[in-house]
């Protein structure tokens, strides 16, 4: 049996094994998109390139067979560069969005399309989980938010945007009125203790997500009731009962509340620092004036912090919300509360503080009317639903009707896409190579599948699968070179091309090109 050396480790495998398989057997992962267990590699994506001693060029590990005495290097700066370039080339011709424009526009980056689809299916538990994963006080937010998501909504270019804010309100209020509103199951309790100063939207959101992460949180505020400036909003815009109910869901995560205490006056920051693993200052727009009192530096707008990590110049002291930059936007404050919770959590766990890192996101960019006309094919053609009772908002039936208008701009395989995962890992930039790319298209002539040619990376896995499963027509590459595409012979529809192995194709397709409807 050949013995070879991979990244300095001696590996013994049977003759005929590829370098990729040999590396895997030794626990060394080589990235690939066109390899499928049982079918082998396609030497198409070329992400599996490695160096083999004595060979001048880079070698695709999915096709190169091992040889006795071979020395393989699976990673170095040049290999990394090659893989990144390969990804950037694939991405330069990848016409699809990972995340929908509404999600990108949302200050909290709520997975709006997932919420909408849950509503459409009357899955309220699913919907509130999606909402609460990013927005701690959605009922409050839907009353006060100016809905940038709806401005970004592509449907708005056809008729009117999906009424996202009303849908969120529906989900949030139905939850608040439910016998047992959504309560996150905290992760395993941690020994860490964190003090959150300020019970406004940013402070409460921060406390909520810290508690969800299993961290014990004490909230300090100089007011008598939690809510901060939200208490100053008029009843007409934000009914008091609603505010109280929603704050209750936050306090129910097990927060220690220390109301009527002003940090810096009643209790020095120093003391908090000594009693807690970390301190979060969410003390609102007056923070600038309090800075010297707290022993912190301040700029024109508020406390000075690191823009990525929200750390002040005192170790373990974080600041966020209007305390840093007055924005007077509750959604942003809520979003920042969650972001800071993330940083604090990383800090108390001794991890590098990175905050919430946005995953890689492929962009279509501006779309024209032709694209929209295709996207609407699977959506309700109706105009925006107007709630019968404007004050009350949507009924569930109305909400479901409205939810059906969503164009599903986000990728159906955003969570399982191999291309996205690797683009993230290798920090590929989609914008590196600009140039012509395929047109956006949706192929909908299969009852269960959606094929998006713009997302295909020509890995050939589905072509090989349809051959393996002896499809009558199957799939084949059509044309050549940059124009090469995937298709069913003789111009037949996808339904005739894939009669037997749709599930295999969807599972194996490394991108969102082939997906369930």
């Amino acid at each position, binding site marked *: 049996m050949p013995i070879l050396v991979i990244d300095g480790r001696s590996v013994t495998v049977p003759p005929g094994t590829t370098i990729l398989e040999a590396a895997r057997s030794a626990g060394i992962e080589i990235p690939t998109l066109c390899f499928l267990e049982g079918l082998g590699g396609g030497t198409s994506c*070329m992400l599996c390139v490695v160096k083999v001693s004595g060979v001048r060029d880079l070698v695709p590990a999915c*096709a190169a*067979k091992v040889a006795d005495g071979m020395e393989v290097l699976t990673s170095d700066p040049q290999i990394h560069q090659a893989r990144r370039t390969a990804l950037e080339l694939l991405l330069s011709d990848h016409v699809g969005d990972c995340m929908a424009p509404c999600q990108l526009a949302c200050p909290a980056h709520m997975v709006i399309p997932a919420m909408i689809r849950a509503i459409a299916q009357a899955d309220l538990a699913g919907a509130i989980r999606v909402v609460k994963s990013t927005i701690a006080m959605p009922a409050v937010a839907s009353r006060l938010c100016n809905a940038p998501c709806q401005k970004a909504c592509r449907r708005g270019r056809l008729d009117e945007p999906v009424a996202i804010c009303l849908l969120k309100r529906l989900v949030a209020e139905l939850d608040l009125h439910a016998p047992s509103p959504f309560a996150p199951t905290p992760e395993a309790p941690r020994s860490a203790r964190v003090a959150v100063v300020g019970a406004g939207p940013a402070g409460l959101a921060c406390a909520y997500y810290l508690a969800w992460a299993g961290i014990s949180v004490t909230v300090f505020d100089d007011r008598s009731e939690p809510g901060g400036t939200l208490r100053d909003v008029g009843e007409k815009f934000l009914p008091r009962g609603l505010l109280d109910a929603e704050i209750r869901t936050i306090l129910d995560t097990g927060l220690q509340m220390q109301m009527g205490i002003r940090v810096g006056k009643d209790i020095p920051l120093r003391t908090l620092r000594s009693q807690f693993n970390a301190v979060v200052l969410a003390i609102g727009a007056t923070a600038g004036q309090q800075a010297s009192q707290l022993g912190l530096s301040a700029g024109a707008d508020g406390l000075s912090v690191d823009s990525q990590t929200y750390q002040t110049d005192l170790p373990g002291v974080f600041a966020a919300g209007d305390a840093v930059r007055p924005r007077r936007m509750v959604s942003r404050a809520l979003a920042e509360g969650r972001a800071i919770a993330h940083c604090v959590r990383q800090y108390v766990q001794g991890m590098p503080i990175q905050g919430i890192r946005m995953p890689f996101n492929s962009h279509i960019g501006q779309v024209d009317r032709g694209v929209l006309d295709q996207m609407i094919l699977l959506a309700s053609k109706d105009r925006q639903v107007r709630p019968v009772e404007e004050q009350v908002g949507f009924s569930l039936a109305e909400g479901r009707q409205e939810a059906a208008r969503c164009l599903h701009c986000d990728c159906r395989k955003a969570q399982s896409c191999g291309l996205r995962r690797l683009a993230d890992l290798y920090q590929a930039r989609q914008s590196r190579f600009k140039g012509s790319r395929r047109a956006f298209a949706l192929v909908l002539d299969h009852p269960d599948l959606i094929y998006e040619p713009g997302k295909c990376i*020509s890995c050939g896995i589905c072509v090989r699968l349809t051959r393996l499963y002896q499809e009558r027509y199957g799939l084949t590459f059509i044309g*050549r070179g940059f124009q090469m595409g995937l298709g069913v012979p*003789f111009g037949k529809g996808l339904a005739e091309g894939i009669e037997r192995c749709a599930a295999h194709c969807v599972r194996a397709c490394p991108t969102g090109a082939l997906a369930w409807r």
Partner: protein
Amino acid sequence: MAHLDLTAVEQIVRRIGTGQDRLLELLHALQDHFGYLPCEALQRLSEITGISPADIWGVATFYDRFRHSPAGRHTIHVCVGTACHVKGAELVHEAFRRYLKIPEGQDTDQQMRFTVMKVACLGCCTLAPAVQIDGITYGHLTGESVGQVLEDFLQRQASRQADIQARPAKKDRMAAQIRIGLGSCCQARGSAGLYSALKEVLSERGLDAEVKTVGCVGMCHQTPLLELIIGDKSYLYARVRPEDLDQIIGRHIQSPRPLRALVVAAKRSLDQLIAGPLEQHNHAILLEPRDRPVQEFLGNQIRIVTECSGQIDPLDLGQYIEAGGFAGLRRCLDGLSAEYVIEQIRISGLRGRGGAGFPTYAKWAAVRAQQTQPKYVICNGDEGDPGAFMDRMLMESYPFRIIEGMTIAAWCVGAREGFFYIRAEYPLALQRIQKAIQICTEGGYLGRSIMGTDFSLDLRIIPGAGAFVCGEETAMIASIEGRRGHPRFRPPFPAEHGLWGRPTLINNVETFATVPWILRNGGSALAAIGTQTSKGTKVFALAGKVARGGLIEVPMGIKIRQIVEQIGGGCAEGRPFKAVQVGGPSGGSISAELDHLGIDYETLNEAGAMMGSGGLVVLDEGDCMVDMARYFLQFTQNQSCGKCAFCRIGTRRMLEILDAICQGQGKEQDLDELWNLAQMVQKASLCGLGKTAPKPVLTSLRYFRSEYIAHLQGRCPAGRCRALIRYMITDKCNGCTLCAQHCPAEAIGWTPYQQHAIDQTRCIKCGTCKAVCPCNAVRVE
């Protein structure tokens, strides 16, 4: 749409066979029948043959030659090969489209008369720019002359139509064809009127003969060449003057009636290539080199592969044998050992002539060492590089030599079956090899019990269908097997795992053609020629801006300067020699400053170029190196099979950067990005096409970076890049109005007797004004 009669599909399958390795032939036959590949016919083909729909559809859409929509009645193939490109093929292509009013995005005119297509290379490089209309080649076109060409073509059609009515049998109609070489050297010798004179002679005599213009076959400096083809015989005259025509024509074609008799009679006699001072009475055939240029041209050449050049008839087996043909094979069969023969090949130092230069003996030994049977041999005749036509010439002129080399190889390695893979753009080569195989089989040199021994070998031709990548050996194997021409990773090499997974020897046409000589003269005789690492000779197609273009066979190690200046006679148009492009799209442009370099595999590689299959295109100061890089990349990008990401998308992105630079929209960082991307594509592409595609870009960045920088600043020093130049009329203008009359864009006002002016907003930069101006008053800035 009218119902399609599919009975032809059955007939075609019955004639050709049902195997998947017949797929290319089947598709060619279907296209010949229907004019394109109708979907219904392909479906029927799948039903009858059992070849999967995916394979048929995938293959039918892979190759350039296959059409999927009806074409016009006539097809105009505009050659965009290297030599044609540098001489303005793009303008000719546009002119045809403009003349025929073909809408954007389509290739056929509204009346469905003409389909205009670009073709990678017609191999008529000395006729550049050239086009082929339904098999009739026209050379030296300008944007201005397309109208005349079409008129001429239609006239021919009309007379042919009449012909068909009179004599419907196709063969009779084609009874006489007269081919005239119209290389640039012809014109230099003041005989441009030959073509019209010939037509005059023919009409005077009331003769029905097709007059065809063709490229020369290596004796471009001795042209005009005139070839008469009567039936399947051909007669070649050199240095023909108009006044000789009457005599020549009279000798072969008396009148329409006796012509038939002559054809019948000629069938028994042998084709004759009249290319020597044999026929004393005719001035036209004096070929004895007397002048210095001829001596220079020939004196630097050594004839091994082109041995007996101009002396033997391509399809005369007797003449070939008389000249020593099949003596090598006989020696093998008479008792040499395969090991001995392979050792001789090793001693000879012969390396693959397809371009990469892998030692030939090593391939042979590797296939021989394989224990499994069957084994195969393949002759790679898919010469796809634009600007190269050596293999075409060898196949047309020396088919027996190639067959002998291949047979020796098959015997050595233990193969019983072999394939010629020949590109469809070479109909004459296909025809000659086919015929030669038949003659050899009948003569006992192929087939069962070759030369009375127990050795057998069957050879078959696979016609390519227009895919450069199929010259890559693993892609070629896929293509022969009836699959899309996608290459695969090597190793395993074909020697171990080739056709149908069997040990397979693949050599280039020229490599095989060298073998018989080695067998007759011994390996050391070849090794005595050439350099330390590169032995023997190499055939080059010398074209471009050189005075004496043609096909040459030179010893390895010959200096670039010797080729350009002595053999080629320097640059034709008097502009300074700037660079020589070696190896086509896989090679690079070597600056004139390096003309002291000797041509061998290593030297060319070190200079950033590559031997390639042997195209040598000479460039002068009028050629833009950025444009050349863009041209080659456009070719490879278009020919990329699409399998691997680096080549499929990487070459495209490189091309887009170059396009921007040529448009004057390049940015400084583009040069670094271009360099980095080119390096990556070279290092990480799957096959040779992708690995070598960046070479033209990298060499031009290396030797001509200043030209790139000039483009970034909005200047094209050579005046080629259309976005960066403008046409101006100087005060030399005498107001003749010719330019105004001919301008297709109506950009020049009609101002008789006054200096004309060009409206820059309307000018499409087609160059017509410059071409028609009698007083050289049009300047390019």
